[in-house]
């Protein structure tokens, strides 16, 4: 294992240039990743603050803390911010941006200027979103169902839809960049089936983004026209069709759930391999499962419309296709588990997140099967059961993956080690707090508590109290990393080039890497995760 410590006088991407301009106008993918890190952390905190207010309101059955209009704005802005401004960009734009060029042995992404532009497009979208928020917010739910959103809501629907529309362009720019980079800029010897699974996952995600996001853009444009000019595309009183909106919306938003989870699955593959010091079991099957999830994800949107009056036969087709998505998801879980077998397993914080992910994603995926079973979805659709399901996959899955990845690559990103003790405490708090918050929601959902309720019958209170209690633990769990990671930037111990003894090109360069990533152009001679051909010493000058 490497004991080489980076010499701080050495030029790296952090000290290559100083001053605010050198950051705001940087074309270095690593610096842009850090800009994104700051931005998504701000949005995550704002979204989290709204969540805290929602949970406080739900502590008692009466709607006594805020007015219903305010409550509706809270859950809508919580959803919009978390999905469009945190979950979708988080892993690709922060971790992916930083790590993808390093993993493929490139000096940068294919289009550094587009990369920087994508960040500013995202910022413009974010500012518009915040502007809408200050000017009254929006109360339609993140799903914007018509005709409520188009004809009835007098909140900032147009502004927020515009923010979503613009944010979409940022995603597309990043996706194009990733696709071209993967196709054109792999190091010599890095064949497709030698690529790390994180790269595959980002590649599959980018394809979904490219194909699905334009549909969202079109849908949002139609919504804006309907809301501001009342042209009536979705208004039955003018011959429009309100349910058409749901089809268009989910045609994007179902694939979007895979935009959120696939990158996390990529991270988990990296973590499981690194902390078992072993090749991911069934590598090719994990690759193909990502690709088939990306493909099948486009064919299942109608499972959100089982009770919307859609034909029962259409429902049946969507049901069986949704069931099929569960197979590649299950294949991944089994392969990760099998990777541990005969591994050399260590439990540093990133691995704790990975193991947590496996458990929580299993529950999230299985409850997806509950929902895809039509006869059962009739009962649980639009209840807290659905809320619990998607938080298990998005918070238990995506955010666990994000935090795991952030800790794993933190030494590379910052050049410093984070405090392992506090990180373990926070991983534990997140896991316990998460389950306490969301598990009771399965039960109260099956009891029949509808979602988006500001006040509810008293017999549901016990579960809501548990949820709120859990949320405070979870909140603390999220607060800690913000503190200690920031602290470690300055006071953390210096990180060696390869603190985990992992294989992968990113560990063969210094921590933090130089501006152009590698001192010598790397050449790949082995498959990914080949621990039996570990380079003796990192290729660091």
């Amino acid at each position: 294992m490497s004991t080489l410590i980076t010499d701080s006088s050495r030029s790296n991407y952090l000290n290559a240039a100083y001053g605010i301009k050198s950051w705001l106008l940087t074309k270095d993918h690593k610096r842009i990743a850090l800009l994104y890190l700051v931005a998504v952390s701000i949005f995550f905190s704002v979204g989290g603050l709204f969540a805290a207010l929602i949970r406080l309101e739900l502590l008692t059955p009466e709607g006594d803390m805020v007015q219903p209009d305010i409550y509706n704005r809270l859950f809508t802005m919580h959803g919009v911010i978390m999905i469009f401004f945190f979950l979708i960009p988080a892993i690709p734009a922060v971790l992916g941006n930083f790590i993808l060029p390093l993993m493929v042995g490139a000096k940068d992404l294919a289009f550094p200027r587009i990369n920087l532009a994508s960040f500013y497009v995202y910022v413009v979208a974010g500012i518009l979103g915040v502007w809408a928020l200050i000017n009254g917010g929006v109360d339609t739910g993140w799903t914007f169902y018509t005709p409520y959103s188009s004809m009835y809501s007098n909140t900032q629907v147009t502004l927020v839809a515009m923010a979503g529309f613009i944010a979409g362009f940022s995603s597309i720019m990043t996706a194009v960049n990733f696709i071209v980079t993967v196709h054109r800029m792999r190091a010599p010897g890095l064949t497709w089936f030698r690529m790390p699974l994180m790269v595959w996952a980002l590649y599959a995600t980018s394809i979904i983004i490219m194909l699905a996001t334009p549909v969202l853009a079109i849908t949002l444009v139609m919504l804006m026209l309907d809301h501001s000019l009342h042209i009536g595309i979705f208004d039955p009183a003018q011959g429009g069709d309100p349910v058409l909106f749901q089809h268009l919306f989910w045609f994007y938003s179902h694939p979007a759930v895979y935009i959120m989870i696939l990158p996390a699955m990529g991270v988990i593959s990296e973590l499981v391999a690194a902390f078992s010091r072993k090749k991911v079991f069934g590598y090719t099957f994990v690759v193909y499962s990502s690709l088939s999830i990306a493909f099948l994800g486009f064919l299942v949107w109608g499972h959100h419309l089982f009770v919307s009056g859609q034909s029962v036969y259409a429902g049946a087709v969507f049901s069986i296709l949704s069931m099929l998505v569960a197979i590649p998801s299950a294949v991944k879980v089994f392969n990760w588990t099998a990777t541990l077998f005969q591994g050399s397993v260590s439990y540093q914080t990133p691995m704790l997140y990975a193991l947590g992910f496996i458990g929580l994603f299993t529950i999230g995926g299985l409850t997806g099967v509950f929902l895809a079973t039509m006869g059962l979805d009739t009962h649980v659709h639009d209840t807290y059961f659905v809320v619990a399901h998607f938080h298990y996959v998005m918070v238990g899955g995506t955010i666990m993956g994000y935090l795991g990845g952030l800790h794993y690559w933190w030494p590379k990103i910052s050049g410093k080690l984070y405090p392992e003790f506090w990180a373990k405490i926070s991983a534990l708090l997140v896991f316990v707090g998460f389950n306490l918050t969301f598990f009771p929601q399965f039960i109260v959902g099956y009891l029949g508590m509808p979602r988006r309720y500001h006040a509810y019958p008293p017999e549901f209170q016990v579960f809501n109290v548990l949820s709120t209690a859990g949320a405070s633990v979870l909140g603390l769990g999220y607060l800690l990393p913000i503190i200690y990671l920031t602290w470690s930037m300055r006071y953390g111990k210096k990180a060696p080039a390869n603190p985990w003894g992992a294989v992968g090109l990113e560990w063969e360069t210094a921590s933090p890497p130089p501006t152009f990533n590698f001192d010598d152009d790397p050449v790949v001679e082995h498959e990914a995760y080949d621990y039996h051909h570990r380079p003796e010493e990192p290729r660091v000058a």
Partner: protein
Amino acid sequence: MPLDFPLFPEAASTMAGQVDAIYLFLVALSAFFSILIAGAVVYCAVRYRRRSDDEIGSNLHGSLLLEIVWSAIPLAIVLVLFFWGAKVFFAQSRPPADAIEYTAIGKQWMWKFQHPDGQREINTLHVPKGQPIVIKAISQDVIHSLYFPAFRVKKDVIPGRYTTVWFEATKTGSFHLFCAEFCGAEHSLMGGQVVVLEPEDYERWLAGGAATAQAPEEAGRQLFDQLACGTCHGEGDGGRGPSLHDIYGEEVRLVDGRTVTIDDQYLRESILTPAEKIVDGYSPLMPTYQGQISEENVFKLITYIKSLSPSPEDAAEANPAENAASAADEATEETL
């Protein structure tokens, strides 16, 4: 705060048991797989924990057989679930033939129900036990969703389009009725109770309000006269508009060559936006009533028009000869 809390909702319809059976099966299945995976993870994590700093894992990297097995087993399980879920869903979606029709109108933020005899209620619905009931619903503004957790059924209630939800209650008592689709400020208050009564009690309850109730077909007939629909729609053919007798459930040809079945949705559109679907052989004379007739009154007109087409069994009982005549009518209509 109550200390003893429920883990399972009350089961009060013929559907509840079937939905709960799927649920329990899935809970057991999920518990099995979650424990299996968690067990395997914990076992491996402990058994293969790293013992020295430069230790590495084995060279094991996959097994085609295992991949096939762990794809095939979940596939088999989800296929079973698909068929099982579809079977229950089809049952939920198709009211039995003897179901009695109620109507519901959703609007921000209340439910307006009407019983078959014309009795009305707001946010509370009384129904008899042991009788299949189908609720034909429409929204006057945004999308709502009529949800009866104790019966395990729900259906979105959409503006401009009828949807139906049916159930047969098996337990007397009072159960929640919710709006499940977010519909604006007071969404969470848009609910009430469904009260299931023994059939005798239900009759008594109906009788209590009988003085004010007017049968919807009767109300529809009055409305039909009031709006002078009869000036164009006479008893027989030959008027400016087609006869509305014995048309329900039949197929009708439109001028553009399409054939459509006359159902509630078609009648609704024919009244509100007649220009969209013109009956073959007629001119687009009928004025549009969009925005002029409330959803309640459209329900009444439809109920009245439906009453002009007695179902075959009713008709056969009442007058076998007339039944034969109407069949002949149909034949001539087809040649038109």
